[in-house]
């Protein structure tokens, strides 16, 4: 049954109660009007409801099954946050409503900015990027703006570990940089010698995440940070793995200059079958002048927008309005639901669950990619031995898991580990 909605469409079908009632006048000149009706489906409301209800039933989802997709943090998205963010005052606010009519919403943004500063250890936050990748773009554009402002125009390279997520090199390219790969050592940490060799006057910056995409904590991050800064480059932190260290360590203290957060991961806003997310960027003093507009400040008791006029060095606007505003409200509610203790529970339970699952898989005979290392919020196993022995590959394993009603882990990522599974049970799963 994969009939499309067009297959069930029939001339004259319609959801009559959705049509506005009345007689309409028009002053649009004939030449602007379309002559043909667009070929949209012609169906009843029941047909629509039934068709899309049944389509939904063909998806795996957190709400239906265990979804240990590494790097994606498929944890429980509280229904309460969705409900509260759907209050009419939030849903019906027009983006151009003046600040005087928007104190509720602006107050929410300001509060979220403050929480994210605390969580990351950075000094300023702009909430507008619409997903991790747009946050990356903002981050690298800021690095670019920083160098340009200093007239330091020879820096044309962004360093990226071989294990990095594909968005990192893609982003560097979008910002007009060349991306240069840095090897990862046997133990999963960045190869310091390779790094040293790559650093130089053309280094604009480095993009890292910690725990890394090898699912281990980059232990020599302080050394890396000094090396990069000494070479005149800046450090970019990919926030996708922040849930692993929430309340345990802060990127700000590790020496990072800029990071986007993936609110749809760390702050549990729904993935929605491919978004929306939100990728706020946090920066230190160095990059503060460049953060994207708009953002919110508090003057006395009133909240107001900061736009271009007050931020002449900003990299500018990244969306028509205020990014994925509704997602920001959801994330704030989730953060408030967690609170001080809850944030610690995130990193602790995420790590505990991953470590436990890793231990169980090791006991069952599977091979960890980095057996000497602690698991973080996720861990990597290599199915190379099994693949050779059984003549099947990691993808076959993954598909077989689907047959058992468990979503497959992330496969073949990071690219440098052969036949791997990146497994992230997340903190909201229980033992059952």
């Amino acid at each position, binding site marked *: 049954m994969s009939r*499309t909605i067009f297959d069930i469409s029939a001339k004259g*079908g319609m*959801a009559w109660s*959705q*049509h*506005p009632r009345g007689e*309409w*006048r*028009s002053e649009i000149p004939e030449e*602007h*009007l*379309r002559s043909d009706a667009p*070929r*949209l*489906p012609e*169906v009843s*409301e029941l047909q629509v409801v039934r068709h*899309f*209800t049944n*389509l939904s039933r063909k998806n795996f989802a957190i709400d239906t099954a265990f979804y240990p997709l590494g790097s994606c943090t*498929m944890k429980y998205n509280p229904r309460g946050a969705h409900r509260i963010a759907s*209050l009419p*005052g*939030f849903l019906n606010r027009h*983006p151009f409503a003046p600040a*005087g*009519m*928007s104190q*509720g*919403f602006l107050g*929410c943004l300001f509060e979220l900015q403050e929480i994210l500063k*605390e969580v990351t250890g950075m000094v300023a936050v702009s909430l507008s990027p*619409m*997903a991790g*990748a747009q946050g990356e773009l903002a981050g690298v554009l800021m690095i670019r703006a920083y160098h340009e402002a200093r007239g330091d125009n020879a820096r044309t390279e962004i360093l990226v570990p071989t294990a990095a997520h594909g968005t990192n*090199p*893609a982003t560097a390219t979008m910002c007009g940089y060349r*991306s240069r790969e840095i090897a990862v050592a046997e133990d999963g940490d960045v190869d310091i010698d390779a790094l040293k060799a790559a650093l130089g006057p053309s280094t604009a910056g480095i993009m890292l995440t910690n725990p890394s995409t090898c699912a281990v904590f980059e232990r020599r991050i302080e050394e890396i940070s000094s090396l990069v800064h000494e070479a005149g480059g800046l450090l970019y932190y990919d926030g996708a793995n922040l849930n692993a260290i929430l309340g345990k*360590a802060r990127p700000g*203290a590790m020496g990072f200059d800029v990071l986007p957060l993936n609110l749809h991961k760390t702050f549990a806003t729904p*993935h*929605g*079958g*491919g978004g*929306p997310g939100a990728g706020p960027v946090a920066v230190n003093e160095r990059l503060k002048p460049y953060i994207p507009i708009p953002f919110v400040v508090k003057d006395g008791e009133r909240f107001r927008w900061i736009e271009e006029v007050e931020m002449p060095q900003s990299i500018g*606007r*990244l*969306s*028509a309005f*205020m990014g994925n*505003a*509704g*997602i920001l409200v959801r994330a704030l509610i989730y953060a*408030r639901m967690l609170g*001080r203790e809850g944030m610690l529970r995130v*990193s602790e339970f995420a790590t*505990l669950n991953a470590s436990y699952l890793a231990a169980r898989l090791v006991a069952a005979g599977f091979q960890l990619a980095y057996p000497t290392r602690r698991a973080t919020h996720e861990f990597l196993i290599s199915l190379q031995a099994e693949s050779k022995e059984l003549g099947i590959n990691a993808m076959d394993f993954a598909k077989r898991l689907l047959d058992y009603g468990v*979503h*497959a882990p992330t496969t073949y*990522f990071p690219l440098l580990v052969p036949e791997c599974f990146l497994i992230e049970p997340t903190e909201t799963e229980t033992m059952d």
Partner: protein
Amino acid sequence: MIAEIGVTSIDDLFEEIPASLRVDGFPTLATGDSEMDLAREFAARSRMDELAVCFAGGGCYDHHIPAAVWDITSRGEFLTAYTPYQAEASQGTLQLIYEFQTMISALTGMEVANASVYDGGSALAEAVLMAVRLQKRHASKQVLSTAALHPNYFDTATSIVRGQGIVLDCMAPSEDGLSVPDAADSPLAVVIQQPNFFGNLEDVDTIVDWAHEQGALVIAVVNPISLGLLRPPGSWGERGADIVVGDGQPLGIPMASGGPSFGFMCTRSKFVRQLPGRIAGRTVDVDGKSGFTLTLQAREQHIRRGKATSNICTNQGLLVTAGTIYMSLMGPAGLRSTAQACHDRTLRLVEKIEAETFAVRAMDVPFFHECVIDLQSISADALVDRLASRDILAGVPLGHWWPDRATQLLVCATERRTQEEIDSFVDSISWALGANA
């Protein structure tokens, strides 16, 4: 669990973090709140912004959203699924995207559509980058837009493409804000918004044909509701637009401060390899059963890394779901009558404003569902502030972007606006303008 892992405490699990970096939680954050307490607190916060009536547009519109749209979209299977990379686990979302692409193509009169990008503004940026890739051999690095392009779209596209050295310019407007191409220009691409930011209808045929004569590609920026009624970009001029983008918010997405919504992108079949973002296609599995999958994935960042067509990963899937359900419910007839109702409401509003207040139309050209009125005596910001006291959002003041248009206000009446609301809005304008006279 601790024992099975072989440690003695949870803290041991974090032992690889150097002591110098360890912190102990967030002393400044408050303790966690219950859902009940948060519901109460945020209800009060959201109430602060509640409006009675909205006459603002400018890229975000107060349309009716059928209850079925979000009832279905909020099902856990749509809400809490990941991006449909694993086709077997995502047939629902994949088929939906496929249907979405078909609908958006039908609406715009184009051959192919992608599964959306972030929003209308960033869709324009992606279209510009795409045009640049397609015009690699073109002499110019200039992209030229009609004068009344949404200023925030212009700014967004500029921020995003600037890193690659691409320049965005605006045509000079005529008196009425419409754009007439200047023979001297020779851009690689021309951006045309229809209806334009002022709500007015550009002479798209002339501009498109001129652009194509110059060897430029045409990027159209459109409002999907207007396409229930207006000529689709695929049939503008002799050959039609080459790339079409827009924002999906009018298709069943709440205004919600402008986001999340989704940006759509369509093009000709021959350009599909340069179309960024995901595309779902129909396919057949080993048993000959048909199914849906992401096609052309090789362009994506997780495979081509530095050479991908775009860095977009997480995108606006859920909003595409809502938009697809909305278009299915409305169908051609519903979309058309919605568009007609919007035009009619705005027409009556503007006529009444001209008849009963000191304000006048700023530009005397045909419009769709937005129109600029000139208040003459007071600034549009002042009017908006005054009407806020009556819980009316009067419109979008233009002075923010064009200081010489400080007395001009962009107003919009969608199909939701009743005659009573229009009457009381016009009364309020009279009151506000009168008070200043």
